[in-house]
């Protein structure tokens, strides 16, 4: 019962919520972009356009699924799977709330697990670009490989600053430490947060770092040759990865499931009027804020040139994150941090 049924139920719930959420993110993204461009956005399907995501999903289900004749058939099929599985797998360790009900599992190296598993997703992009047997796809895949390798490094350093401050790799423990210290890590780690989020945007191939799928230069980049549900998997993977990055930013820097000012306003959160709010509500609220930031970025920033991208990654973010790590480590040492 405890080892089979309950985890299974949790898995199904998480998967359903995640996939539905990713589908609806496309709708919200279109709405937000439209509003930034003083348009109205999709508003025809269903009341106020709310069924647009469902309609899109249905459309993708019934679309013809093409495979290029000269492609590497097996790898071509494998690539979308490789992209979506790691993105969904990460949610096994993300804590949505303080107690065991609100998470699937808590392992003591969860942070390492997240970084490792989410890095596997890049194989999907490279293999998808290569197996399509198309120059544009291959270019997209190569760009993505270079980009992800470059940005993985400063991201790792940004995450390490949090590990130094928390003294643990367990995501649950990291949030607990933030509650115990009475300060969320975004305050001492403001530079780390900036580096982390910029790298996160780059790793999910989103504007302004969307070179792998730059429509204006590479048609569709690595997913040029994909159609139907295979393409939808790429899309779903991208949005799931966005949720992953946002959830990780929430856990690492914004106190996960904790309500705002958990210690200062502790009497307020204990009030019966507020106490019934489940902790995941706060978690999802913060995640939503980060995802909105993603879309805001997309509506604001133009795409980087490739050499600018590389310069930013290696010559700005890497030194900054390294220096920041040193400063934070020194601070923890002086302030008598945990060992």
């Amino acid at each position: 019962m405890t080892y089979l049924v309950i985890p299974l139920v949790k898995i199904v719930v998480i998967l359903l919520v995640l996939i539905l959420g990713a589908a609806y993110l496309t709708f919200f993204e279109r709405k937000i972009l439209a509003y930034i461009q003083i348009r109205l956005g999709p508003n025809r399907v269903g009341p106020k356009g709310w069924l647009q995501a469902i309609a899109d999903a249905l459309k993708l289900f019934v679309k013809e699924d093409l495979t290029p004749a000269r492609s590497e058939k097996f790898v071509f099929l494998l690539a979308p799977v490789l992209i979506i599985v790691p993105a969904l797998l990460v949610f096994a360790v993300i804590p949505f709330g303080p107690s065991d009900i609100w998470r699937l599992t808590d392992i003591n190296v969860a942070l390492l697990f997240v970084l490792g598993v989410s890095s596997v997703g890049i194989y999907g992009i490279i293999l998808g670009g290569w197996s399509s047997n198309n120059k544009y796809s291959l270019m997209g895949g190569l760009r993505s490989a270079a980009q992800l390798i470059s940005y993985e490094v400063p991201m790792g350093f940004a995450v390490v600053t949090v590990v130094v401050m928390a003294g643990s790799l367990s995501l649950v423990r990291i949030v607990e430490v933030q509650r115990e210290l009475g300060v969320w890590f975004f305050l001492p780690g403001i530079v780390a947060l900036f580096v982390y989020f910029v790298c996160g945007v780059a790793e999910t191939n989103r504007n302004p770092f969307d070179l792998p799928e730059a429509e204006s230069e590479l048609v569709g980049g690595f997913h040029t040759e994909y159609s139907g549900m295979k393409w939808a998997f790429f899309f779903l993977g991208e949005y799931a990865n966005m949720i992953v990055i946002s959830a990780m930013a929430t856990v690492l820097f914004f106190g996960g499931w904790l309500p705002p000012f958990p210690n200062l306003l502790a009497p307020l959160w204990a009030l019966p009027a507020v106490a019934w709010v489940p902790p995941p509500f706060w978690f999802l609220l913060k995640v939503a804020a980060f995802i909105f930031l993603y879309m805001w970025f997309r509506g604001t920033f133009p795409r980087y040139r490739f050499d600018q991208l590389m310069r930013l990654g290696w010559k700005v973010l890497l030194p900054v994150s390294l220096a920041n790590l040193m400063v934070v480590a020194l601070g923890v040492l002086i302030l008598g941090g945990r060992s």
Partner: protein
Amino acid sequence: MSWWDKILAFIPLELVQGLGVTGKYLFRKKVTVQYPEQRLEPKDRFRGMFGFSEERCIVCHNCAKACPIDIIHITDHFEESVVDGKKRKKKVLDRYDIDVKRCMFCGLCEEACPTKPVAIWLTTKTYETAAYERNERLYFDKVRLQTWDGVLPFPGVKAPAEGGMPEDPKAEKKAAGGEGA
């Protein structure tokens, strides 16, 4: 660039500035016109679907001559009648066809019309003339030019046959302030 400027260059204030601009636009009033439900009203001088009035037409052929691509086709005959013991000849319109699918809406036919008010005018604000078959449906004879069969009139505008014959189609008298019904 001093060392201080180099450090400041690391702080991405311009990014925040840009985000501020788009953030402001997020709450702007939206400019979308929801077309089938809402329509923008064209200006008075807008050249749309032809209006034609057979009773105003004096069959002078000026419009056909003025047309640069000769898409107006007119045939007529004389009818003789005796009025007060005198023989009278009168021109009667047989055909008045406009091949609207080739029309470029230059409005020269309207300019050439000598009658007052003009017998052919384009200031109808009506632009929804789409048809599935262009040779049949966009070739207007004198009946369809007046009944506007197959044309969706702009709200408030009537087909010439239904009384949509403005006194001042070209809006020459400013006081009239337009045309339409």
